[in-house]
């Protein structure tokens, strides 16, 4: 089982290192082969919205940078951890830059799913998602938006299982890790 931790920390977020280390430790303890990518340290250009990855070079972005490799790793993982400070209820720009480059891994064709139009999946095997959002202090509006975003991502990316967990910095870190451990068990049971 492979787990990919996409760390969307921003330039001043070094205090997240402890949390990420604990998450990696838990995943490894449960038998995952874990890779963590610090997204602020890699080169990923913005998606150009050209759709050439669908109609000219199917399945691959024309931009030859680290974004291609991250997309490959996302496809080849059983579990993806979206780790990010919660920015206005959503992901940081660092995490979003790789999620935007995920679109080559789905098909252009439309289908109806859950009563809405979505794209068909390109790959039969798809990754589960656990999203972890870090917030300075509790904020109901931001937390609800974040959880809804993760749910919608799971629909579009075809995640067999998805979970969203919020860590607020006023919270005891051990409680958070215990919560993550419970979620991980649920995901493992369904994956």
């Amino acid at each position, binding site marked *: 089982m492979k787990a990919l931790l996409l760390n969307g920390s921003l330039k001043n977020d070094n205090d997240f290192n402890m949390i990420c280390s604990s998450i990696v430790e838990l995943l490894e303890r449960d038998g995952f082969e874990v890779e963590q990518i610090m997204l602020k340290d890699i080169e990923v250009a913005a998606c150009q919205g050209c759709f050439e990855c669908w109609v*000219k070079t199917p399945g691959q972005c024309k931009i030859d940078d680290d974004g291609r490799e991250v*997309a490959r790793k996302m496809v080849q993982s059983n579990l993806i951890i979206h780790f990010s400070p919660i920015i206005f209820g959503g992901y940081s720009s660092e995490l979003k*830059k790789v999620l935007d480059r995920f679109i080559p891994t789905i098909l252009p064709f439309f*289908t109806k799913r859950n009563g809405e*139009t979505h794209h068909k999946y390109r790959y039969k095997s798809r990754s589960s998602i656990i999203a972890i959002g870090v917030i300075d202090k509790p904020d109901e509006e931001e937390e609800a938006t974040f959880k*809804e975003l993760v749910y919608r991502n799971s629909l579009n990316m075809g995640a067999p299982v998805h979970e969203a967990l919020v860590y607020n910095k006023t919270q005891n870190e051990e409680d958070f890790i215990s919560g993550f451990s419970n979620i991980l068990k649920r995901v493992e049971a369904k994956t």
Partner: protein
Amino acid sequence: MSNNNKALLLIGSPKGENSTSASLGNHLTSRLEELGMKIEKGFIHRLVNREETIQDLIRKVDSADLIILSFPLYVDSLPAPVIKAMELIKEERNKFESKKSQNFIAISNNGFPEASQNIIALQICRIFSRDCGFVWKGGIVVGGGGAINGIPLQERGGMVRNVIKGLDIAAHALKDGKDIPQEAIDLISKKFIPYTFYRVFGNLGWRLQARKYGVKKKIKDTPYSLTI
């Protein structure tokens, strides 16, 4: 009474002036201009990567009475460079307390026919507006962006008549410093193309484009599959 003379249109699509985000934003600002507002425009993808252009973005935002953010929905949210711009604007606004009242609206369009799929992106914009101390004047969602495809709305004709009518109503309200009326929001988000029709012709369009590039038989390739 607050000054409401200057509007800034920020376009959040990498396609710039040829985008549906620009078609929608330009229509609204052309009406605001007719009503006497001065209009400034900025293309976010060109503004967020270099220190001097970031300063230009900050200056544009600081000097506006009304900020209009028009963007395409990317993976259920805003495109990464737009989020980066929001992070930069918020960071700047943490440094001082703004003395003037600034209004903010967002226009989100998507390539799926259902306008409702833009709702999370609008929530993110509303929280951004709150955290920056802007006055949220409302959000507009447009589905079926592929049918507009970056063409000016007036040239798109009858199909988008409700979008045009709604933006005209919104312009009058915004010029007076009011919220976007619900009537305008409802008109703009109204289905302007049958969903099944959009899906069928959209799928045909993808196949035709793939054929043009000689990859019709490869369109479902799986280059990252572990089994190849």
